[in-house]
């Protein structure tokens, strides 16, 4: 993960900024090679989107399902 992304993530956590957490974990996922790290960050983006009731949550879940990281509904 790029160091500035790490810093932005920590700042978003410290601020409890859920929209930022969703965006930054998605960015971290997209910056990772396909595999565990990619699924890990995408999972975090999805969880914060789910908690927030964000419109992004269904698409994030579908992406996890496509990666085999989540069960279909």
């Amino acid at each position, binding site marked *: 993960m790029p160091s500035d992304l790490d810093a932005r993530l920590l700042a978003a956590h410290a601020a409890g900024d859920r929209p930022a957490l969703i965006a930054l974990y998605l960015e971290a996922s997209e910056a990772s090679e396909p595999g565990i790290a990619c699924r*890990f960050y995408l*999972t975090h983006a999805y969880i914060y989107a789910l908690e927030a009731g964000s419109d992004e949550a269904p698409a994030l879940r579908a992406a*996890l399902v496509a990666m085999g990281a989540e069960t279909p509904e």
Partner: protein
Amino acid sequence: MPKDQRRNILDAVSAPIELARGLPNAHYTDPDTIAEESEAVLSRAWAALAVAADVPEPGDCKPLEFLGQPVLMLRDKDDTVRVFQNICRHRGMILVDAPRKIEGAIRCPYHSWCYARDGRLVSTPHVGGPGQNSHPDLDRATLGLIEIRSHIWRDVVFVNLSGDAPPFQETHADILNRWKEMEQPLHHGGSDSQFMLQVDTNWKLAVENYCESYHLPWVHPGLNSYSRLEDHYHIENPGNYSGQGTHVYRQLTGDDGQVFPDFEGLGDFWDEGAEYIALYPNVLLGVQRDHAFAIVLEPVAHNRTREHVHLYYAQPDIDPVLRRKNAAQWKEVFAEDVFVVEGMQKGRAAPGFDGGRFSPAMDGPTHLFHAWVAEKVAALRAEKDAL
């Protein structure tokens, strides 16, 4: 104490009022006796927890504690209010620690398992290892939030912790029938129509005092100026509720003579009639032609109770000045009772007090409550002795 002696004491409480004694001191002072009693009369009954107005909008939730148990009251997106055990099914972590709005899902702050607002477990991040959010041995469908049986009536949220009480409508069919004219929309008066009194007393003493009109001329002389003792009558329904009614209810009026709007379609009785009952175990209700109230008694400790008072009206938009005046008036009345219920609690430390003798003429509603508690405790003991 030998089992036969314990029974005799409770038999004396359940005896006809002319002969009866009140509940022994231990029911107000002894943690073991109170724990047993709480199982009999609170856990196994439909106990009042809160009011639905505490979670007014979809997604609103409020963590509460009842009999030491962490519970969560939650209004889902379809406007259904449910009560859950406030714990994650994973490690038993408290899920919600302060009232708030759940926008999408309840996320456990520990490992982020997520629950929908209807209690379903919807996500278990990394449960199958990093980046793997399911595991074949973990069936989410069986791991939703644990729901506590609940029922809402007159905006009061009742819970049956034991889960095996008869349905609320069956248990309280008599009062539902008695007040069927009052079965119409209630509008909570909002933040200025609720208050809490923290009282150093056992919750039962608040019930016992509320039930009877005997104390009114002495403790509430202001009420007595227009609502005399002889204008009141007993309301007695053994095993379910008791209280008092009056034939001289007088509407509150504003400076310009304005009054609250009436509930619709009431019979002539309610022109000047009003009724005040304790619905067993722990909610005190009042109904009048133009407003109502509910007092949820929260048992905090054997000698500490929070009285949560909520006022309701027939219409949503009520004159705020008159509404605040009404809340202030009721607060003054209920505060007048505090020294009495605290004084009786202190009196329970006197070893010579034997539960007390009742006035056969005036204490009937209070005695009914004592008898109900005694019968419930005796039944629980008999059930356990038979095991």
